[in-house]
């Protein structure tokens, strides 16, 4: 194959190339695209558009409204280390800290994680509980999609082939004392993806009640998804162990897991309430002002390693 390679330096140049070369593969860190080609999952496209030099796609910026703007080339190690992400959007820092290995986290980008659209993607559930909006640009213009609309199925997103993911907007956090966490079930700590994952966000009012409770699940359905039934139980409740257990149990109703090499559907289904409960408990500890490690699951471990 006579493969072509482009290395644009602006978004305008990039979307021009995508418009002229339908089906071109956009590559940033290559941790899904190139790894997938090496392992035989899917060959590289005829046209490669390497966007690592598009500097306007770099950086994390706080927004005047209290939200956060994450550009597409932000890497997982940047998310893991960023003080504002760790402190306020903690579930996202947890998720990025769990991705692959230090090398994966240094190369792999947020935009790539979104465009790849894996049901086991670590950033999916945190972005769902933060009500994130994904920014897409093509030569036709710009459109913003809620993350829940971007994710369509395993490896399928609403991104058109001529569109580029340029960033993610996190709106301001809800009022009150807010904590969030992402945890996953895993067989080893590195180079692993979630068997089951869950992200939780809890906002507490002055009386300590849950004014806003959110829960999303990873790797138990064709896409990461929010669990309205669990959130209805949390809203207005006292954050007791019983309320959290009840919400976590309700999460199983949203799960439609599959059997695969990582686990059977039955095992995944049985683990959903366990992982959901852990995420809710860790989010509650953060909402109450406790500083937990990143990733948060490390607070549940004992021993040296």
């Amino acid at each position, binding site marked *: 194959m006579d493969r*072509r390679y482009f290395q644009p330096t602006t978004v305008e140049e990039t979307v021009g190339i995508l418009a002229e070369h339908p089906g071109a593969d956009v590559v940033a860190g*290559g941790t899904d695209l*190139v790894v997938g080609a090496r392992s035989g999952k899917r060959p590289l496209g005829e046209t490669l558009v*390497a966007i690592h030099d598009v500097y306007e796609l770099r950086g994390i910026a706080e927004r005047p409204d209290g939200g956060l703007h994450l550009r597409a080339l932000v890497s997982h190690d940047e998310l893991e280390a960023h003080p504002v992400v760790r402190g306020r959007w903690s579930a996202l820092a947890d998720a990025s800290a769990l991705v692959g290995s230090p090398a994966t986290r240094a190369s792999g980008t947020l935009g790539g994680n979104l465009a790849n659209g894996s049901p086991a993607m670590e950033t999916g559930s945190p972005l769902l509980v933060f009500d994130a909006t994904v920014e897409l640009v093509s030569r036709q213009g710009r459109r913003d999609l809620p993350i829940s609309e971007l994710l369509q199925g395993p490896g399928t997103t609403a991104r058109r082939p001529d569109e580029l993911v340029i960033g993610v907007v996190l709106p301001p956090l809800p009022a009150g004392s807010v904590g969030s966490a992402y945890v996953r079930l895993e067989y080893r700590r590195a180079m692993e993806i979630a068997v089951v994952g869950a992200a939780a966000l809890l906002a507490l009012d002055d009386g300590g009640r849950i004014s806003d409770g959110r829960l999303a699940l990873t790797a138990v359905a064709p896409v990461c998804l929010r669990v309205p039934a669990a959130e209805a139980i949390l809203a207005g409740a006292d954050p007791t162990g019983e309320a959290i257990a009840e919400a976590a149990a309700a999460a199983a109703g949203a799960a439609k897991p599959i059997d695969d090499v990582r686990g059977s559907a039955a095992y995944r289904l049985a683990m959903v309430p366990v992982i959901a409960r852990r995420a809710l408990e860790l989010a509650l500890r953060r909402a109450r002002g406790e500083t937990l490690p990143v990733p948060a699951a490390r607070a549940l471990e004992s021993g040296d390693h």
Partner: protein
Amino acid sequence: MRYPATLTVNGVPYPVEIEPSASLLQVVRDVIGLTGSKEGCDDSECGACMMLLDGKPVNSCSYLALQAAGREITTVEGLSDGDELHPLQQAFLEEGGVQCGFCTPGMLISASALLRSSPSPSDEEVRIALGGNLCRCTGYDGIVRAVQRAAKEMAGSRSN
């Protein structure tokens, strides 16, 4: 088609012509001829191919060589100072962190990235930093000890 590019490996610029799909590992080993970095799994699981790209670890088997043009690439050959071993290399020898040696170049590169950003890591931090590097024979305890020994020696030589 092939694209001309300059890869700067261990401070030396190498003008090369590269197919878009060629991995950084293929070009460094087969075109440039530096064979310290190894091909193990060839899909980013094992870490034997680990290099530094602008100071950060990268699985070079699954990174496009063209994307590394114009950036600073470091391989295991770049760690020693002439015939003088890097403190990490010396410590791997002394602590028994090497058996067959196939994973060693990647281990050394990941460990060197860790010690750049965290000069006195905990054992936990060492294990996290080496999480993308598999060893199938000597085991990890000697490797962790070696990284800690090198960290102490490097701290000592800085304070002298």
